[in-house]
């Protein structure tokens, strides 16, 4: 195992003009030298091994995209060192590009008017993919997804899901060492999300490709990532196993119940029955926050079922936002 990405004390600052208000302010701005420095990424270090799938999480504006742009060579770090498969990305942008694949949100990188197969042929040329590898890759794709109906369809006529799928396949086509996926499942329906996750998983296993995945969807993280890196306001908050994170926070699950009768009154009664758990209620659900290290959800459910008629239930995992909030409030590691 060797690390394909090494990031050491990387910081990225942007110079932003302090804007004034109104027309007069705009005119003053033209001549202004009044800049402030915004630190988008603040002293981040990490190493990623070949074949890992890393979930890169954080709220909007946390600095995720900036980090990815630095790893892909689009941005130069203000200070610190980045090595991506042995290259300094910003200095060797084209050499770096040969080693990586990128899918950036909903911005398709395929030729809009061309049928997919023609786009892939052009990519074969651009990345100098040998014939045998190209054929092998398409064979692999055929075994993973229903490729035929897509191949002869122009990209502009595709649905969002089909386009995302095509873009992900395009990013893996030249068998890169690392693939960056920036919110690949955004805006997709549940079945398409599942399809995309299965595909990413399969490609990672088959080709041993390192995947850096940014997402807001904890479902993506649960399905794919063993390791999670969380950043917020440019600072790294967490870098460890998903399991470890769950040990801290994920041991809490919320059991949501719908019963007959008045929720508020019943919730109060349940709270008395289960003094060590936290019960709350709104018009739709009664929520029981279960600490799984102390009580099992099943036992709680069984206990409650003896006394109440439960019409409906849901089990809720903790969300990224909640995790970040908890890290702030309680700290971790």
């Amino acid at each position, binding site marked *: 195992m060797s690390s394909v990405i090494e990031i050491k004390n990387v910081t990225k600052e942007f110079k932003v003009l302090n804007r004034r208000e109104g027309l007069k302010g705009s005119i003053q701005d033209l001549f202004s030298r009044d800049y402030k420095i915004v630190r988008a990424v603040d002293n981040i270090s990490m190493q990623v091994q070949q074949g890992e799938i890393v979930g890169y999480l954080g709220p909007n504006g946390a600095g995720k995209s900036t980090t990815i742009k630095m790893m892909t060579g689009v941005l130069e770090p203000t200070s610190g060192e980045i090595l991506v498969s042995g290259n300094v990305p910003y200095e060797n*942008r084209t050499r770096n590009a040969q080693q990586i694949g990128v899918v950036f949100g909903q911005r398709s990188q395929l030729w809009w008017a061309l049928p997919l197969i023609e786009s892939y042929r052009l990519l074969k040329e651009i990345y100098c993919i040998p014939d045998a590898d190209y054929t092998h890759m398409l064979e692999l794709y055929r075994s993973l997804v229903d490729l035929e109906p897509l191949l002869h369809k122009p990209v502009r006529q595709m649905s969002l899901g089909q386009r995302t799928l095509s873009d992900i396949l395009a990013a893996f086509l030249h068998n890169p060492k690392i693939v960056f996926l920036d919110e690949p499942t955004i805006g997709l329906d549940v079945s398409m999300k599942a399809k995309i996750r299965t595909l990413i998983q399969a490609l990672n296993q088959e080709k041993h490709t390192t995947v850096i995945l940014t997402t807001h969807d904890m479902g993506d993280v649960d399905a794919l990532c063993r390791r999670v890196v969380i950043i917020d306001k440019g600072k790294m908050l967490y870098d460890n196993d998903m399991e470890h994170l769950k040990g801290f926070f994920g041991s809490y699950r919320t059991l949501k119940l719908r019963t007959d009768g008045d929720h508020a009154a019943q919730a109060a009664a349940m709270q008395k029955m289960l003094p060590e758990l936290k019960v709350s209620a709104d018009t739709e659900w009664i929520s029981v926050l279960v600490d799984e290290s102390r009580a099992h959800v099943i036992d709680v459910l069984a206990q409650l079922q003896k006394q109440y008629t439960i019409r409906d239930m849901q089990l809720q995992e903790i969300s990224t936002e909640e995790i970040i909030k908890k890290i702030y409030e309680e700290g971790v590691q």
Partner: protein
Amino acid sequence: MKHTLGFYLRLYGMILAQDLKSKMSYRADFIISTVGMIATNVAGFVSFWILFRNFPSIGGWGYYEILFLYGFSLVSLTPVQCLFDNNWSLRQYVYSGDFIKYCFRPVNLFFYYQSEVFDIKGLGQLAFGIAMIVYAWGKLGLAVTVLAVVKLLVFLLTASLVMIALQNAAAATCFWIQNSFYVLDFVTRFKDYARYPVTIFSPVFRFVFTFLMPIAFIAYYPSLVILRPDEVPLLSWLSPVIGVVFFFLSYRFWMYGAMKYSGTGS
């Protein structure tokens, strides 16, 4: 990884072939733009012809000489029209942040960006231009020698670089300013003056068109090598160098802007 010129030519050929195929699939669009292009060229020629019905010569230049100049400018303005049309979309890509998608490929960024669009409308202009040059050449009684044809081709090719350079530089301003459309539009309007001998303008404009906005190198100076072989000024012989140098500088400027570009949003 360094790619050879052969690699880029082959890749360009492939992209071009694909692009033409997909353009033909929009048949109505294809036919309408072809008709529009012919109409534009005919209208340009008619106004030129009417002008010469009233003035037998302009600044000591006869009808066929001006016709040659006109043809020369049409041909040397074809590459900028056909091959570099994507410059017009640059500011939208930069503004929306979509420009970033061009940054992830292991090929030259400028090449990759420009290769995306081939504007087929320029080909009509090319045909008109060639016809005018051939016709005027015959009427002027210029000798047809291998040397003359080679000279013509070399000077046409290098002259075409001048307008490409101006357009690249104008388009690249969008990496710094938001309303770069006006810069690009402003520069493009000057190309219509390229078809006249620079000597008919006042000294101030002559200076501007030669040294500041060097459109006199699109047709006037290089044409003199063919039209007036006995009295070729130094600037004419220099015009190939000027074309190449200007193109190179504009390319560096464009790339400098693109490298500075950091993308907006996620």
